[in-house]
């Protein structure tokens, strides 16, 4: 690969590269475009610190569930039960903490374990009895919607103990004691930005050492500048309101973990192989049944965590909690570029997809667009995103 140096300079190659990787950049640019659009049409409300913080809080549970859903979709399955499961877990948590006065931490741990068990139970039927996930989780959706009603006795239960509410409404205390400006947020924001840029840079150095750097340097530096600007801008917004919400930390930690798992671990690699060609994976010694079982269990645990966050945010468990979440979560994954046939999809894509939906929800609400038209528009965006994907693939 001696032509790397020349390649990065010519304009034709630059275009060629962008064409070949249009999906990745288009997604990020779409999010950017949608944000700018709403910034203009909400008279600058979207990027106000308080609204940004709200946006994170409103979307955290969708993002968290999208992480698990991406694994499931990559594996070639689907999980329709996540909304109901998260609502059910919220209800169970309310009964444990409010009615039985149990310790919030213990409750949270027990609830996540219960979620994993529920997901695992559904995964068991999918993996070992080969019942289509669509059917199994459709059944699960009905069962847990009903159980949530039963557990709550048809009424809402709340409020939650103070410590539990902190999960959603709390902020990481500013140990640096900034007054108007949260110094801790700045420090963490700069550190995380630096780390991401450093990791990207190191990877590129590694690629170059082996003559594998395909991304033209112009795009590499442009992309990283954009990422840095985005993160630092976001940090500034967070710091000028109340600092970093606890949920944000949880969310980022999980995103980092799932990016690592999908890109670096043997576990993640096998999921992609299974989704790409289950028979070939099986004949290559991959225990596809156990793998399927595991990803459904993970999905259950994440749905449970999302249910806790949502309950803590509303400070009450209602029988209707979680209704329709599954649709937003699944839409996030597909907008983010996951393939309906399995085998293709990225965590970062799903996260961006979730934020595209989140920004649209938020922006359209501020603009005063009714819930009716919001749904129409969101549906159209999902259709458009998948259509463009398929259209591009057919053309290639």
């Amino acid at each position: 690969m001696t032509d790397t140096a020349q390649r990065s300079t010519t304009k034709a190659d630059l275009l060629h590269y962008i064409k070949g990787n249009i999906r990745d950049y288009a997604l990020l640019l779409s999010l950017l475009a949608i944000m700018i659009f709403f910034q203009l049409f909400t008279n600058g409300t979207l990027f106000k610190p308080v609204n940004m913080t709200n946006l994170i809080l409103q979307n955290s549970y969708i993002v968290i569930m999208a992480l698990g859903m991406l694994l499931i979709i990559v594996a070639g399955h689907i999980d329709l039960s996540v909304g109901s499961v998260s609502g059910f877990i919220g209800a169970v948590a309310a009964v444990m903490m409010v009615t039985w006065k149990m310790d919030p931490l213990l409750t949270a741990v027990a609830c996540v374990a219960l979620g994993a068990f529920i997901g695992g139970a559904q995964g068991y039927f999918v993996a070992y009895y080969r019942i289509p996930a669509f059917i199994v989780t459709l059944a699960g959706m009905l069962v847990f919607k009903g159980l949530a009603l039963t557990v709550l006795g048809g009424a809402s239960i709340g409020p939650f103990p103070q410590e539990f509410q902190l999960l959603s409404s709390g902020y990481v205390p500013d140990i640096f004691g900034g007054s108007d400006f949260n110094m801790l947020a700045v420090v963490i924001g700069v550190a995380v930005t630096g780390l991401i840029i450093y990791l990207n840079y190191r990877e590129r150095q590694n690629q170059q050492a082996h003559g594998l750097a395909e991304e033209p340097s112009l795009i590499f530096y442009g992309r990283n500048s954009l990422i840095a600007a985005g993160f630092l801008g976001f940090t500034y917004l967070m710091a000028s309101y109340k600092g970093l919400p606890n949920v944000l930390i949880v969310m980022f930690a999980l995103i980092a973990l799932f990016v690592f798992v999908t890109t670096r671990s043997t576990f993640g690699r096998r999921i992609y192989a299974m989704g790409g060609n289950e028979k070939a994976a099986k004949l290559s010694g991959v225990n596809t049944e156990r793998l399927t079982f595991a990803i459904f269990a993970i999905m259950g645990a994440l749905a449970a965590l999302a249910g806790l966050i949502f309950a803590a945010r509303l400070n009450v468990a209602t029988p209707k909690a979680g209704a329709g979440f599954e649709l937003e979560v699944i839409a996030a994954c597909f907008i983010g570029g996951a393939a309906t046939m399995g085998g293709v999809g990225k965590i970062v894509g799903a996260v961006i997809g979730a934020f595209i939906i989140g920004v649209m929800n938020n922006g359209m609400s501020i603009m005063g667009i009714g819930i009716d038209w919001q749904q129409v528009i969101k549906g159209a965006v999902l259709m458009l995103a998948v259509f463009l994907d398929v259209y591009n693939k057919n053309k290639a």
Partner: protein
Amino acid sequence: MQPILEMRGITKTFPGVKALTDVNLSIMPAEIHAVVGENGAGKSTLMKVLSGVYPHDTYEGQIFFDGTERKFTGIPDSENTGIIIIHQELALVPLLSIAENIFLGHETGQYGVINWFEAFKRTKELLAKVGLKENPATLIGNIGTGKQQLVEIAKALNKSVKLLILDEPTSSLNETDSNALLELLKEFKAQGISSILITHKLNEVMKVADRITVIRDGKTIDTMETATGKVDEDRIIKAMVGRELTDRYPPRKAQIGEPVFEVNNWNVYHPTQSGRQMIKNASFHVKRGEVIGIAGLMGAGRTELAMSIFGRAYGQKISGEVKLHGKVIDVSTIPKAMDAGIAYATEDRKTFGLVLIDHIKHNVTLANLEGVSKHGVVDDLHELQVATKYRKELAINCSGVFQTTVNLSGGNQQKVVLAKWLFSDPEVLILDEPTRGIDVGAKYEIYGIINRLAEQGKSVVVISSEMPELLGISDRIYVMNEGRFVAEMPAKEATQEKIMRAIMKSWES
């Protein structure tokens, strides 16, 4: 007398392959005509041309039927003129009744309302013609394969047939059913219906056929008349396999050592039809540094044998023992078989071998991810080195190890599959049709890889339908037919005729 069917100068080309070259075939009225040839000789392609599966503008040549030139554009077209083909894989719906199947697509009735009375009456008449005593309301799934075959023929009779084509009709029938079917063909002949019988079973051919056409490598080699008395099985076999050994094989200097891998008394039943035994008491062994070949016709049970040994990936009620270095090993799951040191490269690399949407690097390490990872974390650089190493060693022709495997040629895809199994470092490699559908140059390279493996002391089992290939690369050849091992011979003494005869003999006994 005018022939009822005449195919003149049929040439059919697929991208890169000439499947049929100037094939001529003529069928007389009230004749049973056998078409014989090796796997892949072009028999099925010829029948697809005749029945309109390949429309008339996709091939060269002319078809005359019933005195006029025909240009079929599809199966309904040829069926309307009275040509009915019955495929080896029966086209019946198991959950519908006999009557429903017979009238499927041609339902009796008016305005879309079925006249069941009429349908059942007609079905009874048709079943009587083919000698099948079953209630027309019986579900197809509840009757045996032999009877299903008869239902197919009854269905053909319902469409006023003039020429009946049967593709391997007796391949899944027992002796009695086969004989009944052949008798039926004779009866049809008496009624003036011609038949084309495509089969491997020469004893059947000798029994019923008036004339025999031999096809080899897409060309008509010979048409013989059985009545002249000059035709015997030997002459047919010679014509079938007379392919010259033009393919070259790289020499091997392997040291053959002690027996490494043994399979004893292996029995396997069909995965869904539990009464059907697919592998019958099979035993074989491979020595260190040895390449053995397993020869046989399509459907002989070779792939089933290999897959059932490889972690029970096929079949049920499996019994028998597998030994490695004299010790019985557990091959009950694929990971266990792999841990024991067995690798199996599948026949169909696109469906079973590769993750086509992923690139070479990921495919190469899939069967041995532990080899490039620590504590469940993949070491990207190590993986890259491994993939690059195999790319060089096996001369995989690609733009880089990040090229998606779907874009590779067949030969290079096969090399990626081989690389995957080489990296898992097995002692025994089972290669199922390792050169199917790849060009001559790539074949030669794959033979070279097989030789190198043997030289490194591995034991290699090659399953192939190409006999010259088996003769060229193996040290020892086993012949399989109908789930049994029917012959074993050193490759030096083996010839194509010998292998064919072993197969034919196993049918007669």
